[in-house]
């Protein structure tokens, strides 16, 4: 039995065969043992592409450990894969650890033996250990009887054994998960599971054990988009107005079920333009609303975003970034909508952009967005990304803010602090003095995207135009003035400062810890609010390091800094390099960061 305090495994199957279900059950098992998990589903861009094609790859990457996990890590130690084509596809991502063990189901090798052997040879050439296995005959028979379903239960059984879990406990979770199945079918599935469990000893004799821990406090298992949906409710928002798009859709799906239970409504519009229009209409009459989308939808919303700025109607836009440009790679991750959010609408716009680094941020970002947009009456973005939106984590149950029917200024300070912010000044000047809500007697007023004076009258003079610009931008400066020093990791000064935003925070945190352990003089800084940026703080902090770099999941080059790097350069004039700028659609690995640190610090720990 091998003890590990952290490992990563992955289950790779054809789409529709239940890899993610099996993964879900497995992590609930881990959770019962007090382990922490971080799980990233691998989802095809098509629905159920033909089996035995690379496009059909569907799976779950599961990182499990003794301590809290902030990211998916670098490499996989154990792979369980249904057939050689999926293995080949995943090999190309280069995410297996050097002594990775790959369990490959040989069921289909009879018809495709050459193909199997070729891929296995390829894997072995990389130094991985490939272990072939065949499912028990009885299992195969049951699977046949179930029209091909149930294979995932066999694999689940194998994993249960590999990680020394109690099969009875897992069985309970299976029963809960499939409670809608007939008793018969359920038993068949459990039968397969048990055969997998029992048969594993023949396949592999080692077991992995992660030190167990007593679970302290309430834990929840949540992915980013579910947390965002719950946060929307807790923030006191009453209307979600959206249009389906991957990976934002699941926010809508969650709310479609939950929102009516908490007095809210969801509206599926005919397109993204209409969706934000309806959100603006709702906020104009005083009802907090939100819209959510991904890249292509963000491009479509730009005109209405400008209207929200001009009319001073609050507006919250969630953008779950995916790999672009254009339709791009809809089920891969990226962080490259930052400029589109800040600069996308024509003319000089005033906006605030929040980013989320983890599930907890997803939950609280709607609160902060609501606070900012109602105080300032400028559009506020929440930038999430594919990785954050689909990844599950086990985490401490969050305290609620219960802003339903409360004034947004009652937002607890710990939430603002989470986004490195203190409360805004009480009075914020508006372009238009009268900000009454429809329904208020004596308050009748008109808003427009045309330029107006303080009385709200349409006017085309030089002074009024200048004033309106200044008032709008002052709102953004007010945010900058209310920004605390951003979160930092590692050394307060030294050779290298690494800056991150959004989903890279976890990777940064882990990498800095490791680099410190290795003796490097390095610090980390993560931005939650990415527009405006706290220029004064940053200039001060940057001056304490020899070199400042960013890590971002998005294209960057020495001739074209990645997006955050560019913004930091513009505002601080420090030579911030985008040291890691993955345009691969895959998360940054801690190991990449460590290697970068090594190279930047000339390989010499301080």
């Amino acid at each position, binding site marked *: 039995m091998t003890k590990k305090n952290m490992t990563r495994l992955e289950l790779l199957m054809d789409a529709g065969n239940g890899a993610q279900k099996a993964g879900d059950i497995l992590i609930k098992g881990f959770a019962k043992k007090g382990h922490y998990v971080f799980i990233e589903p691998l989802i095809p861009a098509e629905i159920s592409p033909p089996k035995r094609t690379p496009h059909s790859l569907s799976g779950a990457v599961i990182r499990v450990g003794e301590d809290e996990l902030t990211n998916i890590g670098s490499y996989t130690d154990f792979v369980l894969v249904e057939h050689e084509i999926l293995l080949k596809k995943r090999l190309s991502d280069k995410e297996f650890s050097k002594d990775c063990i790959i369990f490959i189901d040989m069921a289909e090798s009879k018809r495709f033996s050459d193909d199997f052997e070729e891929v296995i040879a390829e894997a072995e050439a990389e130094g991985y250990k490939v272990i072939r296995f065949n499912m028990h005959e009885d299992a195969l028979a049951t699977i046949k009887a179930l029209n091909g379903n149930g294979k995932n239960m066999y694999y689940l059984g194998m994993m249960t054994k590999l990680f020394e879990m109690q099969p009875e406990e897992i069985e309970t979770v299976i029963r809960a998960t499939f409670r809608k199945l007939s008793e018969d079918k359920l038993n068949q599935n459990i039968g397969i599971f048990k055969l997998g469990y029992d048969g594993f000893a023949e396949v592999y004799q080692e077991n992995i054990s992660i030190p167990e821990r007593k679970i302290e406090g309430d834990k*929840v298992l949540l992915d980013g988009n579910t947390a965002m949906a719950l946060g929307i409710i807790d923030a006191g928002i009453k*209307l979600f107005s959206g249009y389906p798009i991957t990976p934002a859709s699941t926010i809508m799906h969650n709310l479609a079920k939950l929102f009516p239970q*908490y007095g*809210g409504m969801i*509206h599926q519009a005919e397109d993204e333009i209409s969706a934000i229009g309806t959100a603006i209409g709702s906020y104009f009459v005083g009802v907090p609303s939100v819209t959510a989308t991904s890249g292509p939808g963000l491009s479509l919303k730009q005109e209405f975003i400008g209207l929200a700025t001009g009319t001073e109607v609050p507006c919250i836009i969630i953008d779950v970034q995916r790999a672009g440009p254009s339709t791009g790679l809809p089920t891969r991750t990226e962080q490259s909508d930052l400029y589109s959010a800040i600069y996308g609408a024509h003319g000089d716009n005033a906006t605030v952009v929040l980013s989320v680094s983890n599930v907890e941020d997803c939950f609280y970002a709607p609160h902060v967005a609501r606070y900012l947009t109602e105080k300032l009456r400028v559009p506020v973005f929440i930038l999430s990304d594919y990785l954050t939106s689909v990844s599950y984590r086990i985490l401490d149950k969050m305290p609620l803010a219960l802003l339903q029917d409360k004034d947004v200024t009652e937002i607890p300070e710990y939430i603002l602090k989470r986004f490195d912010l203190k409360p805004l000044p009480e009075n914020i000047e508006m372009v238009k003095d009268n900000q009454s809500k429809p329904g208020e*007697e004596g308050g009748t007023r008109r808003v427009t995207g*045309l330029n107006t004076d303080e009385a709200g009258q349409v006017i085309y003079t030089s002074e009024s135009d200048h004033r309106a610009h200044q008032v709008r931008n002052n709102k953004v400066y007010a945010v900058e003035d209310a920004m605390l020093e951003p979160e930092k990791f590692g050394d307060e000064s030294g050779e290298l400062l690494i800056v991150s935003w959004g989903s890279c925070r976890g990777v940064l945190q882990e990498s800095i810890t490791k680099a410190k352990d290795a003796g490097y003089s390095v610090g980390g800084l993560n931005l939650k609010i990415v527009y405006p940026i706290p220029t004064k703080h940053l200039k001060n902090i940057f001056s304490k390091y020899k070199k400042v770099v960013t890590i971002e999941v998005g294209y960057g080059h020495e001739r074209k800094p990645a997006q955050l790097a560019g913004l930091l350069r513009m505002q601080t004039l420090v030579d911030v390099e985008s040291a890691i700028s993955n345009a691969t659609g895959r998360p940054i690995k801690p190991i990449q960061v460590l290697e970068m640190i090594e190279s930047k610090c000339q390989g010499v720990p301080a």
Partner: protein
Amino acid sequence: MSTEQKEKPAYGMKDYKAADPRWCTGCGDYTILVGMRKFFSNAQLPPHKLVNISGIGCSGRMPHYLETYGLHGVHGRAVPLAMGVALTRPDLKVFIHSGDGDSISIGGNHLLHGIHKNFNCVYLMYDNQIYGLTKNQSSPTTRQGLPTMSQPAGTYIEPINPVKFALGLGATFIATTAEWMNKHLVDTLEKAYAHQGFSFIHIAQRCPKFNPAAWDFQNNEWITFMEHENGIAADPRISKGAKIIQHDPSNKNGAFEAAEEVPNIFGLFYQEKKETYCNLVQKNTKNTAQKDPNKILDAFQL
């Protein structure tokens, strides 16, 4: 309070007047503005309960001139804004003001879905058969052959028939009127307002600046009024010389046939009772068993 005082309306037409309009002399938009104020005052609607929403165009300026709440949005997209109001504040009354270009050129998809969703509002399509504010380009309702700045050799194709368009989408209220038929216009507004759902009103509107020849004001012979006990009476001032026919507004196929005469026919084409989308969505929330917001995370607990 004496009875005499009681009889004086609480809201006079003047109470709905805001900034001075900036339209051209003779523009039909002035008449619509007066019609709106007349209707508001007739119906004694409290100004603070009214929301006038518009797109961009000469017509889009309407909200600025009405002393109510107003939202002057972007070009072609008043409907989504209005939907936000209707969904969340059914206590407010929504009026949408939109030109022919705003409605059916850039705004076609929103109008389409507004009609289909049948949310509660009065929709006024100001049809001057031209782009006014951008100075004389063809719109989808411009008559074939009319030279404009964008199609100087004459507008290429036949106009879209807004009534057939609305009928094809299952609209629950469709009427046509003209701004210079003062009483007919106000009657139409009243009827539309009383309807629960998306009330689509097509209004023939003069643009003396760019499309002065769109309608003939010398005689009324080209005009047909549709009347019915459930419909709208012919305009008393205009009906001289005009043809008057009977049309039952519950007859959809008949409406489709009658619509062949648009834009020369005025009255109520179609009306039908149907639950509004907003009602259904609101009901769904109302009828769902409410949960304790303190326990929102409990279902995700391990």
